[in-house]
């Protein structure tokens, strides 16, 4: 249902849809036992708060160099729900050795780091690597650094749930930085 509302602090009349929720409001419902209000079917970047993360960001950790390309994306309608999220493609190299490269992965294919929610200045993404079943997975958080808008904090929390030995006779190392790093916008 489209509702017409008037903002008195602005001269322009704005239109908003009560089936939509701004992306920056979602986190406030995390402790709500019943989740989001039932009528919300689109979590939308109404106020373009995700734009500041979009671009190519580089950094390093140990001997590895990282390139992250972030775009804004509207998911397809899944389970009656869609959302404006960030997609993060990446390339990890160790000298001339390419450890991983997902820069050319299509939007709905695996191995893309998928946005999940915005909480304040920090945006959470879901990371599942090529060996995710055997431990290469976890949460990534990005936030614009207090050091400048061209700097971004990048923090990886490795996943911690169960791995079945029958499926993973060997456990690969993580390729994401295990400590927070700072990325620079290109």
């Amino acid at each position: 249902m489209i509702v017409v509302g008037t903002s008195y602090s602005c001269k322009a009349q704005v239109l908003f849809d009560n089936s939509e929720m701004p992306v920056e409001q979602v986190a406030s419902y995390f402790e709500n036992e019943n989740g989001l209000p039932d009528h919300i079917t689109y979590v939308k970047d109404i106020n373009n708060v995700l734009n500041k993360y979009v671009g190519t960001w580089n950094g390093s950790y140990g001997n590895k160099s990282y390139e992250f390309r972030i775009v804004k994306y509207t998911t397809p309608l899944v389970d009656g729900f869609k959302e404006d999220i960030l997609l993060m493609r990446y390339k990890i190299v160790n000298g001339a050795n390419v450890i991983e490269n997902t820069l050319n992965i299509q939007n709905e294919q695996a191995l893309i780091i998928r946005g999940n929610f915005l909480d304040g200045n920090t945006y959470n993404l879901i990371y599942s690597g090529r060996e995710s079943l055997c431990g290469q997975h976890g949460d990534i958080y990005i936030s614009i650094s207090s050091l400048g808008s061209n700097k971004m904090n990048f923090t990886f929390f490795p996943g911690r749930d169960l791995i079945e030995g029958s499926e993973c006779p060997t456990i690969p190392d993580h390729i994401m930085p295990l400590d927070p790093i700072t990325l620079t916008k290109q």
Partner: protein
Amino acid sequence: MGELKFFKHLKYVSVCSLLCLISCNKEDNSSEENFTDTSEFVTTNPIALDLVTSVNSFEIKKKDFALFSQQASGTNESDMSAFEQAYGKIRYSDLVMIDSTNTNTLFPLTDDNGVVRSLLVGYYDSEGIIQYLVKEIKEDSGVEVRIGENERMYYDLSDKNYYYYEIEEGSSNESSGTAKSHTIHSSSSGQACGFVYVNVCGTAFGNDDEPPSGSPDWACSLVYDGFRCWAVGDTTVLDAGDSSGGGGITEDDGDDGWTPVGGGSSSNCSSPRVYDPVSGSCILPCDPGFENDENGNCVKTPCGHLDDLYTDAQYVAKVNQLKGNTGLQQESGFSQNSNGSFTTLQVAPNGHNLYIPSNSTSMIGYVHTHLDDFDKVNSDGTITTNKIYRMFSPADLRTFLNMVRNASANNFPLDKIYATMVSSSGIYTMRFTGDVSSINTTFNPRDDRIIQRFKKLIDRFGRERGFLKFIKDVTNNSGVDLAKINNDGTIDEKELDDQGKLDTNPCEN
């Protein structure tokens, strides 16, 4: 029920001549019955007294209501509740019939709205012991009651009247020739005949202003209304009846849809099994925490299994130990072997995941933590908090399903298989009650698209409903039971209703 439709022109209750009513039906078909609590019921009839006393004091065990007698080790209130849920409440009304010779009673059992759901007959058996039979009304039109060897009572729901008929040898064309007409249910042709009486009650014919039951102004009289014959097609199954003698309510032979409530047993059911009118089969009476399976055997309810688990000292000790570990930055847990022993789950070589060894084929359960939120400090001094989804993860689910399938392949009882997650947001347990052959583990629980759908469902619907929807809609699995143990030790079962909403069902202690 159409066998007595031809009686429907009668405006008055017809009753067996052996029953002298102290209360009769109203002739006004449109008037509602006046149901009252049985505590207001006054009678000298020993059967009715026995019944009413039982109901009021919830002494079902004492009266040995067969269907529920085995449940009497629980609270009598719960037994009564189960009985009332199955058959309705025993309440006094104008429909209660008690004979003056104190040999029979007939009580309607009603729902909360006073709608008659079942009829309950009390009588003395051949040993002088009070027995009860209950019959659920399933048809829309009414229910037939056997009140004697050759006597039937029909309660018509549409006009709330009883209709009586006798079954006598008549011009039947039964193949057996000598068989009484009450065997017409086995007859392929012919007809049955009976004497029809109209019982007229009231101060005057057609007077709606009936005085209180028992009033000297209130009288009932039987009026002979002829000898009627009806075709087999007009009847439903009647009792074959193998005992001689007429009057009074005879013992149940289990062939007429009656359920013995007072210790009587159906001839089709070998003791200790009893006839269950709901399933139409012979079932074992079950203790609290048990329910009948499709074969009528008693199996533990999901709550019963959870009770077992949550009262297992070893298990409880492990859970309590893990409660103190949720503030760590590393999950911890135990697996349980089929011999009952617990093994600490080791951290995988990557330093983060918990690792289930490949030789854990005899694992029947696991219990592990999901962490509290925890922080890392960025280079600019700001803090990033890792927000944890404190519900079973897709990988937890898949590990559980693999464990169930493995247990099934090794013929280990599936009702012993469990997975528990201990967190500061609650302790949850999964069990499996579905069809093992339909288990789907083909999904990659760590595919970013699967995790995305999992987290979106949790965000949108909350952790319990979201997880149940994930199981159903994303992994296409069923039969996974989710339960939460609350801080006060009570257990709630969580499931989706038909509309996909969360249904929380507390387990009774």
